[in-house]
């Protein structure tokens, strides 16, 4: 029984990570209607920036998060101006299809660049509190994972507040609902797209920090995390920001329990199976509105 509880907790904690990565992906999709399959590569870049800040500059990983956000935010701006600026000119349907394909091309480019600049060795960050954990009886909740979940929840709430409370947030929500009407209200939708995409990249960067801390970073980790984020985005209902962290935690929980009952080798397979089932029953996702 101990084991089930512990696995469930570990699953929920990792699920927070899935939710955080999905947050950036959903923002880019919700606002720009652009599906960025290279989102995992931005997470990878965030991991390497963190590794540089920690190993070379000597910063504490959690303190480096704002800098990592700014760095990947900048990469997001660059990618938007060089690439996605042209994609948003298409109508919605072609935009989704083309962005899927273009970002796939981006995956190839970013991975090859990462190999040339960072070599293919995988890197990891160790801190003195890496092994710290809160313990109740024999259940252990690792500090890093808990902190990761808190960061994920904080960013999700922060993003929600930005959208609900600030004027610029309203402009973003308006643009994602109807870009033509938004521009008729005097909103410069180009700037909205730029900032929204850059925030999405920044969020990916921060997730990269947590992955560098909890796991390891190498040029090829991107697609694995992107697939998990895609599943969470679809589970929570395309374009909705609200249910992402919860949907991520549910996916993590399903993986944790699957590995307890069926063995480690089947954790991924069961999670994918569960996802397909949910898709069949509720195509608009757990929290999404029926389109």
């Amino acid at each position, binding site marked *: 029984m101990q084991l089930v509880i512990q696995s469930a907790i570990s699953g929920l904690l990792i699920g927070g990570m899935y939710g955080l990565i999905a947050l950036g992906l959903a923002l880019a999709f919700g606002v720009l209607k652009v599906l960025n399959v290279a989102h995992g590569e931005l997470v990878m870049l965030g991991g390497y920036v963190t590794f540089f800040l920690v190993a070379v500059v000597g910063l504490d990983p959690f303190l480096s998060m704002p800098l990592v956000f700014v760095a990947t935010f900048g990469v997001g701006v660059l990618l938007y101006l060089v690439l996605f600026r042209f994609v948003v000119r298409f109508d919605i349907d072609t935009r989704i299809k083309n962005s899927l394909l273009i970002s796939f091309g981006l995956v190839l480019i970013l991975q090859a660049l990462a190999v040339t600049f960072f070599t293919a060795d995988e890197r990891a960050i160790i801190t003195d509190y890496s092994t710290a954990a809160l313990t109740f009886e024999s259940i252990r909740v690792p500090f890093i994972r808990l902190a990761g979940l808190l960061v994920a929840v904080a960013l999700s709430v922060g993003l929600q507040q930005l959208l609900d409370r600030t*004027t610029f947030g*309203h*402009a973003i*929500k*308006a643009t994602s*609902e*109807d870009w*033509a*009407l*938004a*521009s*008729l*209200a*005097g*909103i*410069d*939708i*180009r700037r909205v797209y730029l900032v929204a995409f850059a925030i999405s990249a920044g969020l990916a960067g921060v997730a990269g920090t947590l992955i560098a801390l909890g796991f390891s970073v190498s040029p090829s980790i991107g697609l694995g995390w992107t697939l998990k984020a895609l599943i969470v985005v679809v589970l929570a209902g395309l374009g909705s920001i609200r249910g992402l962290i919860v949907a991520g935690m549910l996916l993590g929980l399903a993986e944790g329990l699957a590995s307890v009952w069926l063995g480690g080798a089947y954790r991924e397979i069961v999670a994918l199976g569960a996802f397909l089932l949910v898709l069949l029953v509720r195509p608009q996702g757990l929290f999404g509105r029926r389109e």
Partner: protein
Amino acid sequence: MLEVRDLEVAYGDLQVVWGVSFDVPERSIVAVIGPNGAGKTTTLRAIMSLLPVRGGTVSFRGKPISGLLTHQIVEQGLVMIPEERATFAGMTVGQNLELGAYAKRARPHRDETMDEVLAIFPRLAERRKQLAGTLSGGERQMLAIGKALMARPELLILDEPSLGLAPVVVEATFETIRSIRERGVSVLMVEQHVEMTLEVVDHAYILETGRVVGDGSSDELRHDRRILDAYLSM
């Protein structure tokens, strides 16, 4: 105030608007009437550069605006209310109105304008916290117009304001338009209902299959049915 000269607009290689020209003088209400599919909405969307202009020029208060982006045109004081879905259904009435004043020209006076708009449409004040999607057709039309007024427009464009509204609501809407003009705002309106429109507007242009086939003051057109009947297969 608004001069449209030889406007050409096309969707890809399908040309829809052929050499349309018309003017909207200061403090006047002008209408463009024509049957469905005459290219009315396309013309308006081209003026607001929501669609690329294939040929001709559009200038507002003497300055050409065909090269500007939509939000830059709104900044000049030219605001349009689109045909349907003219409000953000997922946001509250209050948020819709606030967004109306997003343009730099209007944002500083937002609260002041808000009071004026709520005075014109008291019903919106009651519904302020409600999601726009839950309003009735008439209320949503009020919100659409209110949102447009929040941008303190000098020229307001309405795309078929009567569409899908009960006659009594249409009557109220036209009344509102007349009052807007009293406040010094010129109006360009695109409509299918000829009789009601002619009662409100000063001048009207007749558009058929993408071409201006005739125009005249509302009195001329109202008395001399022949012009109307000749051009419109009504």
